[in-house]
């Protein structure tokens, strides 16, 4: 049973517009959420995170929103750039940071930025 779900396998967005990637989770014990970006043949790269005590965290063009009651989070990228084309993974843990017992990942969303 998937505890972290990314229901959109792919998303196509025009360059300069906003990209919104969604993620849902079922385990109420998760209290720390992360987004990773992955290019082909490379390892995932940490992008941004949010603790369950917050509902928003911003870092440059990237903003993550958390709705605990709905068990939903989203990643907003504004403006989208060609270099943002990659697979984005949502991940969750029961503790701060990487989680002493590891991360639970979604299946990923392939973001394609169209020129």
């Amino acid at each position, binding site marked *: 049973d998937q505890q972290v779900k990314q229901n959109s396998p792919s998303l196509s967005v025009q360059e300069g517009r906003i990209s919104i990637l969604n993620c849902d989770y079922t385990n109420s014990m998760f209290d720390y959420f992360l987004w990773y970006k992955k290019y082909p043949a490379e390892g995932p790269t940490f992008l941004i995170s949010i603790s369950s005590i917050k509902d928003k965290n911003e870092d440059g063009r990237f903003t993550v929103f958390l709705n605990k009651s709905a068990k939903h989070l989203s990643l907003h990228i504004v403006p989208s750039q060609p270099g943002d084309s990659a697979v984005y993974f949502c991940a969750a843990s029961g503790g701060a*940071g990487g989680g002493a017992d590891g991360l639970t990942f979604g299946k990923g969303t392939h973001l394609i930025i169209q020129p």
Partner: protein
Amino acid sequence: NAGVTQTPKFRILKIGQSMTLQCAQDMNHNYMYWYRQDPGMGLKLIYYSVGAGITDKGEVPNGYNVSRSTTEDFPLRLELAAPSQTSVYFCASSLRTSAAFFGQGTRLTVV
């Protein structure tokens, strides 16, 4: 900075062979992890370690073994390779309160 280094990058194994995937980190992180990623799927935790001499099973540990004799190294051992172990393997490390840093991955094919 090297970060997390995995070797080899690619490997083809025959069914029943064994091998060790190497992972080393130079960030003095206490926590280390092994994940596998199958096509179209997210990463799944195989084993993790919270410090030298301490290891624990993750979600998919069957068919694998690990050891952690030093802070820097966390090798993953496959004893009897099976086709179901064909995957991309990622090693990662972190501090207790930091996001995990990942290596470049090892692509393993078992034929």
